[in-house]
């Protein structure tokens, strides 16, 4: 990761004795540390600025396994989020966490490992159901792994279960711990992809496109299933050529047969996110497109623009391979039909479709 440094560690009361805390402190012996009260901002912790150079270790009292915050107005995939922390050292201008979480600092939950049994019980109590679980919704799954060692205990935990997959979603090329692990089963390593221009201008501190794809190739060779997420798709003059470059790199380096799914989602935002982005990234062009208010209150591209982007990109991806598990993130039935030529019609059917991908690729 480019230009990333933790300047201080904030340890919340209650987190001191957790093993993950001790591990992080051992990893960063010379970083200044400060004990803080839960829910209280430490001096200099600035919500507006996000304060991504402070690492706050929290003994989390909430639920670790949560449904992905979807909406009834659009078709959602029934994903579950494993809540390992929030915010990440990468600094994508469009990141929804800037207004969704509304909390500064890189936040790590120190008692995750101690709570895995609860998650195990939930998964094991519904053996006929497939749980698609990911850690990459509220943070990047791998950017802090060198400190947290999440993969050390999450991979064996999920690998031994028959009815779940763990998706580790990232924009980094930090795969060392994955490759070193001996666990592969039920693990999907996924990359968020965009055009080289968007990566350069909007996805600050992330790995370049080529590094991401080379890392994916390495994971694939090491026996992991792969996922890719074209989300957020951004519309700008030359977008088509930009996404073409990205697909060409996929074609060149990735064998499509072990790709479990590829999602497409267009840029969408709440009004509060626009304010936060304008404040932190005044020069960004991501709001230049034609955005209208969606059924969920979020702004999204005018429907024909979304349909064109999904349609052209899916057509191109289908040329690469006919069975990539393409799906749309938070879209309506009519947009599905117009752009992909079919629709799951509702969230339940999309869940079933993605579950079937899990069963098909990973075996029952």
């Amino acid at each position: 990761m480019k230009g990333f440094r933790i300047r201080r560690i904030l340890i919340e009361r209650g987190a001191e004795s957790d093993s993950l805390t001790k591990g992080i402190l051992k990893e960063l012996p010379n970083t200044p540390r400060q004990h803080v009260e839960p829910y209280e901002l430490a001096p200099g912790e600035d919500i507006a600025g996000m304060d991504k150079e402070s690492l706050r270790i929290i003994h989390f009292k909430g639920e670790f396994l949560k449904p992905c915050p979807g909406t009834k107005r659009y078709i959602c995939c029934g994903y579950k989020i494993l809540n390992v922390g929030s915010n990440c050292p990468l600094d994508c201008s469009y990141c929804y966490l800037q207004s969704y979480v509304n909390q500064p600092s890189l936040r790590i939950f120190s008692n995750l490992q101690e709570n895995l049994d609860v998650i195990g019980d939930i998964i094991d109590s519904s053996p006929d159901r497939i749980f698609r679980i990911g850690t990459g919704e509220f943070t990047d799954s791998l950017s802090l792994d060198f400190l947290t060692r999440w993969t050390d205990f999450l991979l064996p935990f999920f690998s031994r279960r028959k009815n779940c997959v763990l998706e580790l979603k990232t924009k980094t090329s930090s795969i060392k711990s994955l490759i070193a692990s001996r666990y592969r089963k039920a693990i999907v390593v996924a990359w968020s992809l965009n055009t080289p221009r968007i990566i350069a201008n909007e996805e600050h501190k992330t790995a370049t496109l080529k590094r991401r794809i080379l890392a994916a190739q390495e994971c694939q060779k090491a026996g992991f299933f792969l996922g890719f997420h074209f989300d957020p798709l951004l519309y700008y003059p030359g977008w088509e050529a930009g996404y073409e470059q990205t697909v060409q790199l996929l074609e060149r380096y990735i064998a499509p047969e072990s790709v479990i799914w590829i999602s497409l989602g267009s840029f969408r935002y709440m009004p509060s996110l626009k304010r936060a982005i304008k404040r932190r990234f005044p020069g960004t062009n991501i709001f230049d497109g034609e955005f209208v208010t969606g059924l969920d209150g979020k702004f999204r591209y005018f429907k024909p623009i979304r349909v064109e982007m999904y349609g052209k990109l899916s057509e191109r991806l289908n040329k690469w391979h006919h069975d990539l598990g393409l799906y749309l993130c938070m879209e309506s039935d009519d947009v599905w039909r117009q752009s992909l030529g079919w629709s799951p019609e509702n969230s339940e059917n999309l869940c079933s479709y993605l579950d079937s991908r899990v069963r098909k690729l990973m075996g029952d």
Partner: protein
Amino acid sequence: MSFSFDLEPLKASIDRFGVLNPPYLLRNSDSHFTVVVGYRRLLAVRELGWSDTVCQILPDDFPPFEALLLNLHDNLVHRHLNSVEKGMVLKGLTRFLTKEEIVANFMPLLGIPSNRQTLEQFLGLEELEEAIRISVAMERLSPRVATLMGSLGRDDRLRMNDLFTSSKWSFNQQWEAAQWIVEIASREGRSAKDVIDEGEIVGVLNNERVNNPQKVKSIVKILKARRFPSLVEAEKLFKKGLSGLSLPSGVNIIPPPSFEGIDYKLEIVFTKGGELKEKVAELSHLSGLEKATEFWKGTEHR
């Protein structure tokens, strides 16, 4: 903390009844005085040509923060502070208090929504040119738009100020148009001033045959078409399709907002049940009605 005010009513009052409440002053180290309370009264007295008036001198050790509060409370009890003056008060408070304290304790006192974002908005007003601050103080320019102008260059914001104060714009219209201007400028790689000064808008501004509300409406329409070309084109196509349907009078089809949803509404205006029945019967035989939801499609977005 007075900005952009009309001194004449106060002058008339003082001329007739004298200074009823004496101004309060603080002696400086150089033996000059700082006006804590009563700045406008002293200005009025000077303009009336009086050579003296009675003032109260505060103790030399009177704390500056207390002086600021005295001024604030004196103003709050007898007049309405304009937005620029509220910004001046808030700026003064930042010398003594944290922003969190100001948000919690002073913004409610000033009748401003208590949040950090609004605080920054008011603090930013002082950085703007006097012409813009006068527009805000006179409530001809939205403080929110003035804040947005803060992110633009001097020429751009002065041009925008001219645009919004030359005709009667509502604050909502100003906000919408200001955002569109900035976004068009960003997308086209031009300045906001250039966007405003392009032919169509200038043509509307210089057209003496249309009144001010019509001018505002036309400019909003021009900006919307440039900001949302595909959406506006879709709206036109839909309207054109409807007009070709020969709908019965008092019947209208309303598309979902921005064509995002899939539910359309049929509106029938009628005064008697028989009339409703007739219109429904007419609609049921109307050729082309089944294509109404397709009229807007096929939009070539730019």
